[in-house]
């Protein structure tokens, strides 16, 4: 499956911004099941300084600095990506075939994996989260089945409600609010997993969406997305999307992962201005190519 993903974030400010510093997420060159053939980054005004790098987790970011006075800023990344469908299905199939009980996944020796067992700024383990997770993670249940069940339950128990939470909302708070957006549900699942002793991480990316039946696809109507991923030692990471009640398939594009949202915001920055941000527009297109 080939995709072109274009992601634009555009700001309009009330007053002059004298300088601006930013960090934008790029798409990894290659991870199991996904290859990025080409990527373009376009920033306006043209930055005085621009540098790409890999972070601690191996994600790719670009740093930029704008030192000219401006009132508008736009950052666009365009990536050409190929998803290898068999690779994702094979991993899931292999784990399913072993029927690995979830408890077996709690034994993790590899140090980088063990950090995903620990609390992170937005996800703190708790008895409440463990109890919620335990309803799906019954004794000896195969892990893929348990994850699938958890994704369904979150989808059923929690309302998708933009505005109900903030970027700083924690997993524990989501459990109380019973509502949120994709990153909140990802945090919730991660919190349940870690509270049960499983290693879980936060994944940031895109999802191809279908237009409503009989309607043409609208430009810019796709979205950036987030979900959770759980480590099965010796096998790999299983990604599940509680927002859409399913395990991640070939329609998902991965951009970055970390302990939680705070490690991998798609775009962050610092500006110097007296004014406020009047308008913020995000446009994402996930377009299937070569068909």
């Amino acid at each position, binding site marked *: 499956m080939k995709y072109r993903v274009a992601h634009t974030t555009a700001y309009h400010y009330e007053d002059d911004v004298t300088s601006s510093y930013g960090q934008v997420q790029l798409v990894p060159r290659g991870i199991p099941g996904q290859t990025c053939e080409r990527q373009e980054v376009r920033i306006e005004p043209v930055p005085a300084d621009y540098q790409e790098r890999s972070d601690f987790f191996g994600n790719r970011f670009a740093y930029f600095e704008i030192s000219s006075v401006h009132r508008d800023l736009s950052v666009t990344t365009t990536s050409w990506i190929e998803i290898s469908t068999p690779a994702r299905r094979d991993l899931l199939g292999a784990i399913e075939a072993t029927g690995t009980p979830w408890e077996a996944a709690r034994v993790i020796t590899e140090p980088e994996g063990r950090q995903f067992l620990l609390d992170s700024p937005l996800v703190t383990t708790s008895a409440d989260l463990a109890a919620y997770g335990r309803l799906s993670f019954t004794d000896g249940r195969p892990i893929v089945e348990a994850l699938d069940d958890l994704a369904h339950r979150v989808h059923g128990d929690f309302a998708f409600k933009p505005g109900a939470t903030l970027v700083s909302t924690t997993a524990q708070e989501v459990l109380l609010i019973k509502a949120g957006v994709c990153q909140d549900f990802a945090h919730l699942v991660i919190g349940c997993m870690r509270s049960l002793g499983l290693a879980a991480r936060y994944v940031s990316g895109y999802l191809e969406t279908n237009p409503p039946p009989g309607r043409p696809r609208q430009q810019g109507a796709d979205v950036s997305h987030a979900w959770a991923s759980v480590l099965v030692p010796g096998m790999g990471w299983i990604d599940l999307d509680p927002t859409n009640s399913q395990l991640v398939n070939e329609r998902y594009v991965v951009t970055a992962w970390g302990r939680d949202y705070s490690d991998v915001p798609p775009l962050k920055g610092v500006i110097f201005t007296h004014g406020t941000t009047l*308008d913020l527009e995000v446009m994402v297109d996930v377009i299937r190519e070569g068909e």
Partner: protein
Amino acid sequence: MTTTAPADVVAGYRPPAGAFDEMVDDDGRVRGHWSQVGRVLDGLGLDELHRRRTEAARLLDDDGVTYNVYGRNRAIAPRWALDPLPVLVTSEDWARIESAVIQRAELLNWILADLYGPRELLRRGWLPPELIFDHPGFLRPCDGIALPGAHQLFTLAVDLARDAEGRTWVLADRTQAPSGAGYAIENRVVMSRVFPSLYRDAQVHRLAPFVRALRSGLQAVASPAVSDPRIVVLTPGAQSETAFEHAFLAAHLGYSLVEGADLVVQEGRVWMRSLARLEPVDVILRRVDTWFCDPLELRARSYLGVPGLVEACRRATVSVVNTLGSGVLENAGLVAFLPRLAERVLGEPLELDSVPTWWCGEPAGLSHVLANLDRLVIKPTARAFGWGVAGDARAAPPSSQAPGGNGAGPGGGGPDGAGPGVVFGWELSADQRDELRRRIEAQPYRWVGQDQLSLSSVPTLGEGGLLARRSLLRTFAVAGGDSYLVMPGGLTRVAGRDGAAISNQAGAVSKDTWVLASEPEQMAGVWLATGPPAPAVAPDASISSRSAENLAWLGRYAERAEGVVRVLRVTHDRRNDFADGSNPAGTACVRVLLAALTEVTGTDSGFTGEGGEARMADPGDELQSLAIAADRPGTLAFAVRRLVDAAHGARDQLSMDTWLVISSMQRDLLEVPSLERATLQRVLVSLLALAGLGSESLVRDPGWRFLDAGRRIERGAQLAALLRATVTVERDVATDSLILESLLIAAESIITYRRRYRSHAQLETVLDLMLLDPDNPRSMRYQLDRLLEDLRALPGHPGVGRASEAEKIVLEAWTALQVADTALLAATTGTTGTTASVRAPLAGFLLDLERRLYASADALAAAHFAPVLPQQALATPADPRAARASHGFLP
């Protein structure tokens, strides 16, 4: 005070049983290396020791040595406390400590380089990942930052203590941005003045080599591509608890003291906003905790940092020391692994053990700690995880590196200098212990248990004799060459009272630590350097724009304070002269002066306006308030306080003697409950001394120009305001002559006037002297001449024949003054009643001068103190509040 026979001083010392005492052994005999000092103490006697203690306090005061305590809003910065008795260490004992501290620095350096590099320690299982990955000091954005040269850990402070048997243990390591070395050096300076002969005879190892090593180490840590590195000291600001030390080190080392807003990252490297331009910065001595250093990649809401600093460090265009992320080593759990790591990494045993520590992340450690909860000291691996420390693991105060750290948890009353969040198991109730047990069991890798040490005691001067106080020693190491250099001695701290925690926030007292040399050392100044002469730093490059602004304000507030003091004084004297009310002219003059005070100070609800008549009738309280109400804008005390603030903000630009003057001014004014004339005199003397320092002790660099420009602007404006408030209304001759005389006194020109005109005062000639005379340093013309000189000497001046914006405004005022006719100005134009007529042209003329002067100040600020616009975080699309305004939202 009881008078003790001199010989009884040492003999009367009774340390508690069961602890090791530094001065006397178990049988009460004075230890060999203390005998000489002991004899001197006996010879001096208690009264003399008290006198020396007062002398030490005065010297510290005069140098402006402060230690700010959180959560107290006070006009006077708390003073640094120094006990006059030194702690003595033999050179044999010291050699062991020095070697052990160097070894520890090498080991911690290796660990730091590995944790932000290959992480072999984790891969090989020599350190458990939970210990590092869970620690808030491990900052993932700092991964991969590497300093040039052999050392990633630049400075290290190690807190040491002795147990009952006299064995030395390590209590804690400080690696984030260790503080205390500057205080130790200042203590030494003071001690060598208070006990000159004792200090000389005792053959004490000097601290100068440490300062030299710090300077050469900072130069060596710059990128190899830079031949003459530019170095700055980054401070959280004058409110930081150890602000004194930041400025002290900057001044001592000769580097600029900067705050985050003074720096900017452009094109991947760091620059200082200096007066004329951006100056490259190669090395930053960091006194801001890492988490606050970069709002882009670290704490988004920090206003103490520099956006892009982490990126610049990653690109190695700047060397920040200690490196960003070095706080990961301040991990109470790490010490449990150091003995094993020393063997594995260095191939040798650890020379000095940490206090026995069990990390609960290992089953054996956990079971030992849980089984011994009632007798162990329980510490979190990081301060933020501690008992009673809430939520955000990284919301610690910006400078948490102060000696003794911050307060302690509910059980933190023990005398071991433990940091915050530390609890003493034996102090907990059964319920508290159960709660602690649950917390440890939930996240065992966040906790350690440590044995409790009974710290050694040292003699400390009390009112009735020497008192035994528990002590800690903080030692300091700095990287240099292929090893580390340790400050000989360090900062000893003792509890402020018996049984209290040894923490500066809890009132601990410091002591100088003397390492006794086996043979006399060669004297060597800090400044002597071999090799080719170093190129001088351009004067306008060495001052930050913020320092320059503070200097200008220092000049303005000093002048404002002086103006207010002089009017207050003459008013006071006139009230005394005409206290009985029998002289109508005298009474009228006093009324004019009182109204002038309100006018000149610009204070609200004074002697004019609503309620003014009542205050005029009984002016005592209002006069008190105008002098000493430090929170009321316009008053003398307010100006003095702002003056002190501005001086702190420009601390790296001022001479040491400045603090002598400022501290006495603070004592005289900000600490008095009520005002007397003598107080005004003393404050005036201090202000004159300050002015003298400004003209005699400061080099005529751009910084001085700003200071002087501030003075000229304010003196001119004050003069215009005073004249407006006194002589723009004509009254009867007797009253006017008293007013003119008072005016000349307040303007410090009465002698000149009398000598020159030898007559009763006339307004026209008074105006000649006060406005037009180019040779009267108190005249308007003189202020404008000097101000023009200052403005023309500033960096960035457009060149000969051209004028800057500020200069244009002053030139207009100068020209108006040139063409002014004092005879016309002195004439009256109309009547406002039966007894007085106004001089409208004079009033307009003066108001115009005053406005132009203030406008020139604004123009100066706009041209040179380019304000940094408010810093904000970029709105994030993932924030639902922002997303509502956007087309798409995050599902």
